[in-house]
């Protein structure tokens, strides 16, 4: 261990000297860049920040004009109100939350499973048709589900999936983006490990799940983030018309439609939708960077 630590220090030192050798901009340039990024960053976060602030404001502060950018007496009233508003609806709010959580978990798990299996094969196996399949995946990156959902509606109505959980879950499982990222990061794993496992008599499935997948943790986390975002923000649209199968985003939109009088509740529900993806992203952020570093399309 001690040896390892020593080595790390020397690398650290090396990096510093690297920097000195590099061309460096002037201090003025640095400041300009920093100010520019900060301003742009403020524009980016302001709506998010403001939604959170609004959701914490008590009624007296919500309608103060001009609006304040901070909250004096933070309260969770809006969140509890949200449940009581929803209680007057057909279906309790907890059902929508359950739907969203359920769908999100199922989509994430299935998406990971399917993409790991297929990603491993495309990255590491040679078989007739592999080149064509790789090409197909790269091309189909274009057709994310926001482009194809109208045509998906046709397919699903033929399969009698409209107005079931299937309509929400199945289309989001086999995502080209997930497979692509998985393939890219798995192809960086050394062949020698796989060869060794083959010699030991492991089947493809075992090689995939006991050797390759545990070694692609960053990619797994990245897929979780993308799958989570997609699933958590999923709106049934015209695929779902039973009230008890609708998801949280749908109901947030309905609350929003109720207008400004229920502003606190509106923002509370928006924040409820907003927070989980942000947390998941923050937790997995460094893994994402590692995976995306392999994301390039090479011909």
């Amino acid at each position, binding site marked *: 261990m001690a040896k390892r630590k020593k080595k790390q220090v020397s690398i650290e030192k090396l990096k510093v000297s*690297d920097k000195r*050798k*590099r*061309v460096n*901009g002037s201090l003025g*340039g640095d400041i300009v860049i920093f100010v520019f*990024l900060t301003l*742009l*960053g403020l*524009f*980016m976060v302001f*709506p*998010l920040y403001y*939604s959170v602030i609004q959701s914490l404001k008590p009624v007296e502060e919500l309608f103060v*004009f001009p609006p304040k950018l901070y909250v004096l007496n933070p309260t969770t009233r809006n969140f509890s109100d949200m449940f009581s508003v929803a209680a007057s609806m057909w279906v309790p709010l907890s059902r929508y939350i359950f739907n969203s959580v359920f769908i999100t978990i199922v989509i994430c798990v299935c998406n990971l*499973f*399917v993409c790991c*299996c*297929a990603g491993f*094969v495309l990255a590491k*196996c040679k*078989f007739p048709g592999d080149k064509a*399949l790789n090409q197909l995946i790269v*091309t*189909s990156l*274009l*057709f*994310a*589900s*926001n*482009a*194809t959902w*109208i*045509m*998906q509606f*046709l*397919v699903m*109505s033929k399969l009698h999936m409209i107005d079931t959980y299937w309509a929400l879950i*199945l*289309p989001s499982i086999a995502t080209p983006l997930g*497979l692509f990222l998985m393939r890219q990061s798995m192809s960086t794993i050394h062949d020698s490990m796989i060869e060794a496992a083959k010699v030991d008599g492991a*089947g493809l*499935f075992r090689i995939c799940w006991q050797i390759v997948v545990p070694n692609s943790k960053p990619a797994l986390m990245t897929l979780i983030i993308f799958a989570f*975002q997609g699933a958590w*923000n999923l709106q049934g649209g015209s695929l779902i018309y039973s009230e008890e199968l609708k998801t949280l*985003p749908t109901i947030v939109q309905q609350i929003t439609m109720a207008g*400004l009088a229920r*502003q606190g509740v509106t*923002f509370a529900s*928006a924040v409820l939708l907003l927070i989980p993806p*942000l947390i998941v*992203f923050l937790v997995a*952020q*460094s893994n994402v*960077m590692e995976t*995306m*570093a392999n*994301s*390039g*399309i090479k011909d």
Partner: protein
Amino acid sequence: MAKNVNPDAPLIKQGKWKYTWHMIKVNKGCYGLLAPFMILFTIFTLVPVVMSLPMGFTNFNMIQAPKWVGFSNFYTLFLNDDTFLIAIRNTLIFAIFTGPFSYILSFFIAWLINEMHPFLKTLFTFVFYAPSMTTSVYVTWQLILSGDSYGYINAVMMDLGLFNSPQQFLTDTRFILPVVIIVQLWISMGAGFLAIRAGFQNIDKSMYEAGAIEGIKNRWQELFSITIPSMGPQLLFAAVMQISQSFTVGVVGQNLVGLPSTDYAAHTIMNHATDYGSIRYEMGYASAICFVLFAAMLLANKGVNWLLGKYLD
């Protein structure tokens, strides 16, 4: 069977097809692992995309069987449907802003972030990526842009004396398009931005050192002669993401200014397809619209690939 397991050379003599068949049999495990993905992918991505062409030639209202009508949908689309032409124009405007513009912006922001302290790097990456994770904060934008004198922009502008009366940002045709573009830009830094951001970390540091010795004087020179050429694959990936995103804009507009928006001012191809597909249930016509959209995306992708490929080689 047993002696065929070894996929060795002599089999090639038996002919190409037999050899392929043999390889398929040898590798059936691979197909087994691929199957779950491929089945779902075929049903929910491949079939919908491919189906849009044949369905585009029919009249189909979801109740009666599809009826073949030849090119009539496409005739109507390009020659008789003024709204579609507006939609094409708007989609192109959106595509320019949320495509190339946002792409270049992502690149520059990623580049600027990359020079910073690790903590600031993480913070800024989060800040710029966060909006693309959210679909629910339209409420805030609605408050900011609200058309009465309590809308924040209106209030500020009237206080400063720049406006005499509140402007209807969400219903006035002069404002709808720019407003939706701004909100669209706000959420446009998604996977592509992350890929570019990560691409910077991939670059071999010694390249910069060598560059400094060769006499590169400033950041700009470094950017164009070292950084961009070594990021080709990431740039291609980001381009694909950006195209896919910018051609299918519509949801933001739909939530912000309604569907249809006043005078179709923010109507995009995607909105048009939604209108016919899930409101009027004219699926044949909607398919034709989708096909045009898919074809445009593929063409744009080919074009960008060609451009980037030319620049990077």
